[in-house]
C-alpha cells in the first residue's frame, strides 16, 4: 500500500496534525483508526494547543543553544570546514513504563549472553566445539583479536558500554536491529537533548512524570570504577582521538560530567608496562581507560602501525593487567551483522532462557539457499555488509534503482560471506516538527547499557529520526536527527 493510498483510506486528523500521514508503519502517537494512543494524550493535547509559530520559536531557541554549546559536527567542503548541528526535534518520543521494563529486561539478558560469548571465544571456544557457530565466522572476522586469547578481564565484562539499536515493527513490538559493542556513541545527544527539551516543555515534563536520565555519567563512572574494585582512588581517563573526531563533543562532555581526565594518545606513555599521563607536575599513573578509539588505532605496536592516535605499548600494559581498557579489545567480533543472526541461539545456549526481545529475520548470504533467495528478491530486501556500520555499505532494495541493485548483486556474488539481508522493515513513525508543521517520520531507539560488576540502564535512549519524508535511514551521517526519549510513569 502506498503512503498516499493509506492516507486516503484513513480518517483525517485535527489541526495541527492535518498533514500527518499514517502509513502501514506503526505510529507511536496514533492508532490506525486515527485515535490518539492513551499514553500520548497529554502530549497530543499540549501540541494541539500550541500555535505553530510558538513551536517554531522554541525549535529555533533549541538550535541556537546547540550551536552556542558547540554540539556540532564538521562538514568539510573544498574551501572551508562548516560546523553543523545535529538537528534535534523538540517533540519527545514516549515509551510507557511497561514497554521500558520489557526492553530493559531484554537488553540485560542480551548483554549478559554476549559477554559470555566473548569470554567463551577468547578462552575455551566451547560454542565452536559444540558446532553452534562456524569457526570460520569467528576466526575469519576482521574484528576477532587473537591477542585477546586467554586474557582475563574484570568481572568477565568485555562490553562495558553498549548501545543497542531497536526498532518498533508494524506489529507494535520492539525488535533488536543491531548491537553496538565497540565504541557506541550518541549518549551525549540523549543528555543534552533532554536539557533543551525540558526547557521547551517544563510543564509537560512534570505532568507526565518523565523518568530522569541525568544520572548516566555517575552510573558510567560507577561502572568504570567497578572494574578496579580493590583500588580506592583509581585514576580514570576518557581516551579520545581528538577534536577532529565527530564525537569529540561527547568525549569531552562525558569526561567533564564524570569529573575525570580527557586524554589523547599523545598525553599517555607506557613505561615498564605501566600507563602514565604527562602532567605539569610529572607523570601520573592511569588505571582505567574508557577508550573512544577503535581497536585498530589503540596501539601502533600491536595493531595498525600507522596510527598516530594510540599509545605505543598500551596493549602490553593491558595484558600485564596494569590498566583496564573499557570496552575490552576484540568485542567487535560479537556485533557484526552475521553473528547477530545467532544471538537468540546464544541466549538459549549460555543462559538456558528464551530471548525476551524479538529480532529481525535475517538471511545469511553465506548459506546457499539464502543466497539464491536474496538475489531473487533484492527489490524487497535490505542488504548489509556484515562488518560495516553507520549506514555505509548497504542497499535498501525498494528504494534502489535497477542498476544499483544489479551492481550490488555482483558484489554479493563475489563475496557472499560478507553480506546478510533482511526484509525491509517499516520503522515506526512519530510526530516530528518539520518544515513548519507536524509530520510523521520514521524513528529507531538506541538505549545504552552499562555493564561492570552490575548491569545498569538509565530509563532513556537516543532516538534517531529520519528527517526526510519516507526515509528509513536514521544515521546522523546520512541526514538523521535526534529526539528526546521520555520513559513516562504510569497513568500519565
Amino acid at each position, binding site marked *: 500500500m502506498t503512503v498516499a493510498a493509506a492516507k486516503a483510506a484513513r480518517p483525517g486528523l485535527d489541526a495541527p496534525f492535518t498533514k500527518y500521514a499514517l502509513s502501514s508503519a506503526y505510529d507511536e502517537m496514533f492508532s490506525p483508526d486515527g485515535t490518539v494512543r492513551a499514553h500520548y494524550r497529554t502530549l497530543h493535547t499540549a501540541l494541539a494547543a500550541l500555535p505553530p509559530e510558538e513551536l517554531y520559536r522554541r525549535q529555533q531557541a533549541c538550535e541556537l543553544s546547540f550551536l*552556542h554549546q558547540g554540539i556540532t559536527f564538521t562538514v568539510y567542503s573544498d574551501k572551508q570546514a562548516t560546523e553543523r548541528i545535529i538537528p534535534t526535534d523538540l517533540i519527545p518520543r514516549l515509551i510507557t513504563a511497561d514497554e521500558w521494563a520489557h526492553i530493559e529486561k531484554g537488553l540485560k539478558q542480551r548483554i549478559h549472553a554476549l559477554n559470555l560469548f566473548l569470554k567463551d571465544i577468547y578462552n575455551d571456544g566451547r560454542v565452536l566445539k559444540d558446532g553452534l557457530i562456524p569457526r570460520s565466522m569467528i576466526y575469519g572476522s576482521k574484528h576477532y583479536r587473537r591477542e585477546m586469547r586467554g586474557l582475563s578481564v574484570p568481572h568477565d565484562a568485555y562490553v562495558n558500554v553498549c548501545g543497542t539499536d531497536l526498532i518498533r515493527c508494524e506489529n507494535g513490538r520492539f525488535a533488536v536491529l543491531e548491537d553496538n559493542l565497540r565504541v557506541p556513541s550518541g549518549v551525549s545527544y540523549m543528555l543534552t537533548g533532554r536539557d533543551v527539551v525540558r526547557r521547551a516543555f517544563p510543564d509537560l515534563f512534570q505532568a507526565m512524570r518523565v523518568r530522569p536520565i541525568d544520572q548516566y555519567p555517575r552510573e558510567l563512572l560507577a561502572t568504570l570504577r567497578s572494574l578496579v574494585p580493590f583500588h580506592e582512588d583509581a585514576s580514570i581517563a576518557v581516551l579520545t582521538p581528538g577534536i577532529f573526531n565527530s564525537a569529540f563533543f561527547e568525549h569531552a562532555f562525558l*569526561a*567533564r560530567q564524570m569529573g575525570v581526565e580527557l586524554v589523547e594518545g599523545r*598525553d599517555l606513555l607506557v613505561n615498564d608496562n605501566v600507563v602514565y*599521563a*604527562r602532567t*605539569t*607536575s610529572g607523570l601520573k599513573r592511569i588505571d582505567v581507560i574508557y577508550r573512544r578509539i577503535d581497536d585498530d588505532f589503540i596501539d601502533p605496536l600491536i595493531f595498525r602501525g600507522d596510527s598516530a592516535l594510540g599509545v605505543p605499548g598500551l596493549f602490553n600494559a593491558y595484558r600485564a593487567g596494569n590498566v583496564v581498557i573499557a570496552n575490552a579489545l576484540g568485542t567487535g567480533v560479537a556485533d557484526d551483522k552475521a553473528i547477530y543472526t545467532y544471538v537468540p541461539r546464544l541466549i538459549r545456549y549460555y543462559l538456558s532462557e528464551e530471548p525476551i526481545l524479538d529480532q529481525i529475520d535475517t538471511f545469511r548470504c553465506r548459506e546457499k539457499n539464502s543466497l539464491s533467495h536474496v538475489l531473487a528478491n533484492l527489490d524487497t530486501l535490505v542488504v548489509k555488509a556484515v562488518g560495516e556500520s553507520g549506514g555505509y555499505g548497504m542497499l535498501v532494495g525498494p528504494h534502489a534503482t535497477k542498476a544499483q541493485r544489479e551492481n550490488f548483486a555482483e558484489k554479493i556474488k563475489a563475496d557472499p560471506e560478507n553480506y546478510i539481508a533482511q526484509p525491509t522493515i517499516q520503522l515506526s513513525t512519530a510526530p516530528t516538527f518539520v518544515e513548519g508543521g507536524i509530520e510523521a517520520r520514521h524513528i529507531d531507539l538506541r538505549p545504552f547499557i552499562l555493564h561492570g560488576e552490575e548491569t545498569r540502564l538509565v530509563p532513556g535512549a537516543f532516538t534517531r529520526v529520519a528527517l526526510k519524508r519516507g526515509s528509513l535511514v536514521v544515521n546522523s551521517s546520512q541526514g538523521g536527527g535526534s529526539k528526546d526519549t521520555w520513559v513516562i510513569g504510569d497513568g500519565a
Partner: protein
Amino acid sequence: MMLSRVADSLYWMSRYLERAEHTARLLAVKLESTVEQTREESENSWLRVAASLSSEDFLAEKPDGFAVTRRLAFDHYNPSSLVSSLAFARDNARQVREQLSNEVWEYLNRLYLRLSPVTAEGIWSQQPARLFREALEEIYTLGGVTDSTLNHREGWYFLEIGRNIERAQLVVRLLDLHFGTARALVKAEPSYFDWIVLLKYCNAFEPYCKEYTAIIEPEKIAQFLLFDFGFPHSVRYAVDRVCEALTQVAPGAPPSRREKVERLAGRLKAMVDFTQIDELIGGSLSAFLADITNQCEDIHEAVYASYIAYGAETVL
C-alpha cells in the same frame, strides 16, 4: 593533576585572546580618532598600527585604513588577524572544553561565530569602529566570566601566564614603535595626537591623567606604561602576574624543575621593579625594551621545558 597538553592549550587560548583584545582595541581607537587627523597624520598612524600588529613585509604597501583593517581584522589567511586569533583561541578552548565552564566556552564560541563571517567590505560604510568596540566589550565580558566561573587553580594560572606574557610583549612593541628602534619604520615623529592615541591603545589615557594630569609628556608615558605597579596594562603589572602565577602551577613538580623558570621570571621582575625611567631616556631605552621581549621569550621556553614539553626520560 593537569595534563601538560591541557596547560599548553589554556596558555595559548589566553595568549590569542589577549592578542585579539589588543587588535580590536587598536582598530577601535584608530578608527575613532581618524576623523580628527590630517591625511598625512592619519597615514602615519595607520602605519604604526600595521607595524605593531603584523610582520614588516606588509609595511611596504601604502597605508590605507581600509586595507589595514581588512588585513588585521578579517583576513582568515593572516595568522595574526583578529578573526584568526579568535579562531585559534577557540580551537584551543575546544581542545580543553572539559576544563572550561559552560559560560566561558559559550561566550568565546558566540564571539567567534559572530565575528568570523564579517568582512571589511560589509562593515566599512557603517561605523566600523562600533563593531570593534562591541567585540572589545564582549572580550572584556569573557574575561570577567572567566574570573568568576573558573576555579582559580592551576588551569586559571596558566591562563594568567599566557595573557600576561602576551600583554607585556604587545605593550613593549607599541613602546618600541614610539621610543625604540622600530620608531624608524615611520618617518614622521609622533605628534601630540599620537601620544594620546598611544595611551588609548593601552586603555591608559584616563589612568595616566589621574596620575600625571592631562599634560602629555613622552617620558611620563613610557614611565607609566612600563613601570606603574597597579595599572593592568603596564609591563610591570603583567610581569608581576606572571611571577605570581608561576608559584601556583605544577604544584607537584620537584624544585629542580621549578628553579630555572622562577629564576628567569624573578630576574625580569627585578629589572622592571628597580629600573628608573631617567636612566633610560636618551640612551638605553631601545635596548631595555628589546631585553624585556627576549626575557619574555626565555620565560615562555622555560615554562615549556619544565612543565609542558619535558622529555619523559627526565622524570622516569
